[in-house]
């Protein structure tokens, strides 16, 4: 089942029809001479199609149309797709977006496969998968022409049809037909898996044995299953083009291979926790356990074939400056957030940028406006603070609730991050600021008051802002979204845990069933993760990075839930093999603290979120934190006992 037949395509109806037509450069319309002249010397356009369109989001109304070309130069074939200028279905799609999608002359040597979809109803499209494993967004042929496209390709280079799926054409440029077959099956990701597993008697299917012999090199080939899955997965992914856009843009920005290698190296240094999983997910035979682990429907490792962009270095001052206009407005806040999503922010910029991310400053405010806001908010803070500062000891005696609240806060601020230099030592003034801000908040939002966990959320904010009123207002903004986590009836937490269970059911039903069987569907073992946004799971600086990423709300407000799933998925084999029960699971999850690879988990989470798509979004009830509350009225139940 592994060998790929080399079909004689001449018996294929598509092919036959097209070959009569010949190279179909005339197929498109509106060809202008300029477009020819823009091609390099001795390049020949062998195919041109107008109105080939991508759908950058799930919404068909948002689309970018362009021109698809096949160009031949020095016997090499290139594909390009250039969006039309200044014409966009939707204002939300900026020029920047268009640039992201543009496909500039990719050589077919870099293409692994083309999958065509020619439904009887609806638009035809193709998905082009690169040998790096990344996929371009589907190219919709609004005017038809998929058949001619494939045929033209076939006329200029060798493509073979996959024996498993007649709609998949494997592309490569090797002369030797056998090698050609091999290279078309080579998956970058599975090679690395094979490497990590080779020490533990990794064996391939019989046909893979051939491969190794022929290859002779140190690299091993993946198994057929991996390939099958990858094709399914690729498809799933490229359907959501929002995601593919990132990967596409990535191709042109940096050397993927290097990033990829760097990542692999990092992975091989990963904590021993992760290692068994890699082996397990690849080959059941090498697992040491008697308990069979249901396989992951998304086959996590293989999913990474189409991973989002590798994480980038944090946003630095020069790049930050390019986002601001001369008066200090952020011109493209969405683009900024996306940039931050992929790499975070350099530490020195955090004070400035967090205020925007948290919504304390409007992104379209000017420097001058912000100065004004700062002054107004500072005095407003002092007003609220004064409300409790002016309570005399005599008054406090008759104000039990105030005394209790104050007592609780004072007992807690001395138990918050005291091992950090910023908060350590007796009589540390920053600890006193924590207290003031929390107490003021409990007057600002008297209904919610103070609840444990809030000091954990405030601590990094004060650490970054280093200013009492500013920290207060940033904390207020954060609590707009996370406040329901601290409701006395825990409704915010329960809705998140509920959404989490729905998402796991969607994305990993065997794991869901396992939790069900073990009576763990309440997901209490994720309670701390969610309540304080993983603050206790990572070192402090990693938490800062994670938070700024989560606050971009890209690609979802609820990315934190996908982060939970990403972590669980990395441990799923261990959890199920060891037949963890509620108790052991809780302990196990607690002890993951400090052992989670943030970058890897974020990339997984992004992919899971995209994979879940609209079904994922539908699993999360409206108003689930950190979404803003559905109605604005009384958000926090009043409860006489609340502190």
């Amino acid at each position, binding site marked *: 089942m592994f060998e790929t037949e080399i079909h004689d395509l001449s018996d294929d109806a598509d092919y036959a029809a097209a070959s009569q037509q010949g190279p179909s450069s005339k197929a498109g319309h509106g060809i202008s001479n300029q477009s020819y002249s823009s091609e390099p010397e001795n390049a020949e356009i062998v195919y041109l199609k107008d109105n080939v369109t991508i759908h950058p989001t799930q919404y068909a109304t948002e689309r970018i149309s362009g021109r698809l070309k096949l160009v031949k130069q020095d016997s090499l074939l290139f594909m390009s797709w250039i969006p039309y200028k200044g014409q966009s279905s939707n204002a939300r799609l900026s020029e920047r977006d268009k640039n992201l999608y543009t496909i500039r002359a990719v050589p077919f040597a870099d293409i692994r496969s083309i999958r065509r979809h020619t439904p009887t109803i609806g638009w035809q499209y193709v998905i082009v998968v690169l040998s790096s494993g990344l996929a371009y967004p589907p190219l919709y042929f609004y005017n038809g022409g998929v058949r001619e496209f494939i045929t033209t390709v076939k006329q200029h280079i060798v493509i073979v049809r996959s024996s498993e799926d007649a709609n998949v054409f494997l592309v490569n440029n090797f002369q030797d037909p056998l090698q050609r077959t091999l290279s078309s099956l080579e998956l970058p990701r599975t090679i690395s898996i094979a490497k990590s597993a080779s020490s533990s008697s990794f064996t391939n299917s019989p046909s893979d044995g051939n491969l190794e012999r022929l290859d002779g090199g140190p690299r091993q080939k993946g198994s057929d299953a991996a390939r099958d899955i990858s094709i399914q997965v690729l498809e799933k992914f490229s359907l959501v083009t929002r995601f593919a856009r990132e990967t596409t843009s990535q191709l042109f920005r940096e050397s993927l291979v290097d990033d990829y290698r760097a990542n692999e190296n990092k992975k091989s240094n990963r904590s021993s926790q992760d290692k068994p999983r890699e082996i397990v997910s690849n080959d059941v035979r090498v697992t040491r356990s008697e308990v069979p682990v249901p396989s992951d429907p998304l086959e996590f490792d293989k999913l990474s074939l189409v991973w989002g962009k590798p994480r980038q270095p944090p946003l630095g001052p020069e790049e930050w400056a390019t986002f601001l206009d001369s008066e200090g407005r952020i011109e493209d806040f969405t683009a900024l957030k996306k940039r931050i999503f992929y790499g975070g922010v350099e530490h020195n910029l955090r004070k400035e940028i967090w205020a925007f991310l948290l919504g304390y400053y409007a992104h379209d405010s000017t420097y001058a406006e912000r100065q004004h806001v700062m002054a107004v908010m500072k005095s407003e803070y002092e007003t609220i603070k004064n409300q409790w500062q002016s309570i005399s000891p005599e008054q406090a005696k008759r104000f039990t609730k105030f005394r209790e609240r104050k007592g609780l806060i004072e007992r807690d601020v001395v*138990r918050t991050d005291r091992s950090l230099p910023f908060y350590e030592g007796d009589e540390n003034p920053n600890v006193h600021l924590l207290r003031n801000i929390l107490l003021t908040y409990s007057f600002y939002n008297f209904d919610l008051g103070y609840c444990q*966990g809030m000091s954990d959320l405030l601590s990094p904010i004060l650490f970054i802002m280093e200013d009492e009123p500013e920290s207060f207002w940033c904390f207020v903004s954060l609590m707009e979204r996370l406040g329901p986590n601290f409701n006395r009836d825990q409704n915010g937490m329960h809705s998140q845990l509920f959404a989490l269970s729905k998402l796991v059911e969607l994305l990993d039903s065997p794991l869901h069933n396992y939790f069900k069987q073990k009576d763990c569907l309440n997901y209490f073992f994720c309670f701390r993760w969610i309540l304080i946004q993983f603050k206790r799971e990572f070192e402090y600086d990693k938490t800062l990075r994670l938070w700024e990423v989560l606050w971009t709300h890209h690609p979802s407000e609820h990315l934190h839930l996908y982060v939970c799933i990403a972590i669980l998925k990395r441990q799923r084999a261990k959890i199920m093999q060891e037949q963890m029960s509620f108790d052991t699971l809780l302990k196990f999850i607690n002890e993951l603290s400090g052992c989670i690879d943030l970058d890897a988990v974020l990339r997984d989470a992004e992919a899971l979120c995209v994979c879940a798509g609209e079904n994922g979004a539908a699993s999360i009830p409206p108003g689930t934190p950190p979404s803003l509350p559905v109605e604005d009225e009384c958000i926090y139940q009043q409860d006489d006992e609340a502190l």
Partner: protein
Amino acid sequence: MSYAYLFKYIIIGDTGVGKSCLLLQFTDKRFQPVHDLTIGVEFGARMITIDNKPIKLQIWDTAGQESFRSITRSYYRGAAGALLVYDITRRETFNHLASWLEDARQHANANMTIMLIGNKCDLAHRRAVSTEEGEQFAKEHGLIFMEASAKTAQNVEEAFINTAGTIYKKIQDGVFDVSNESYGIKVGYGGIPGPSGGRDGSSSQAGGCCS
């Protein structure tokens, strides 16, 4: 390390009474007043010896804040012993004992051994609950009682070990079916094999992370 028995303990009581400090004093023999407040639950473990048998205590240190109760209740399941802690310098933590007991009775198994601890007895000058009151409450509710200090370590060993002694005696007396894990007891390799035989004794070590 192998053990004859493994007992699951939980530590409960109001926030700030010193639960985490008691645990740390017992497992690490140190007083660390500035550690973080507890969210959810934390774990500790230590081996002790009773009747020449190695016994492993796996201790669940729960969060004391009222609003976390719906979560912390789920931790009672299968605990063999509980340390119910109040702070002798804060009257309200003593007043709340009844509600903690009610939770324990509802969510834990009926044979759970409960030790009442009046903590921070080093702060005698700020005492707000007398020793007699503590004794009285314990007597009324059938609990073992001790005053202790996580700071000076006074009675900390005793609190954990006496509780284990009581549980051990209950096993000897046949109160528990030790093969049934819902009692919070596991039989290890060095123990009296129950109907289900020996169990893994190497799985976890004190509070360790996966490093």
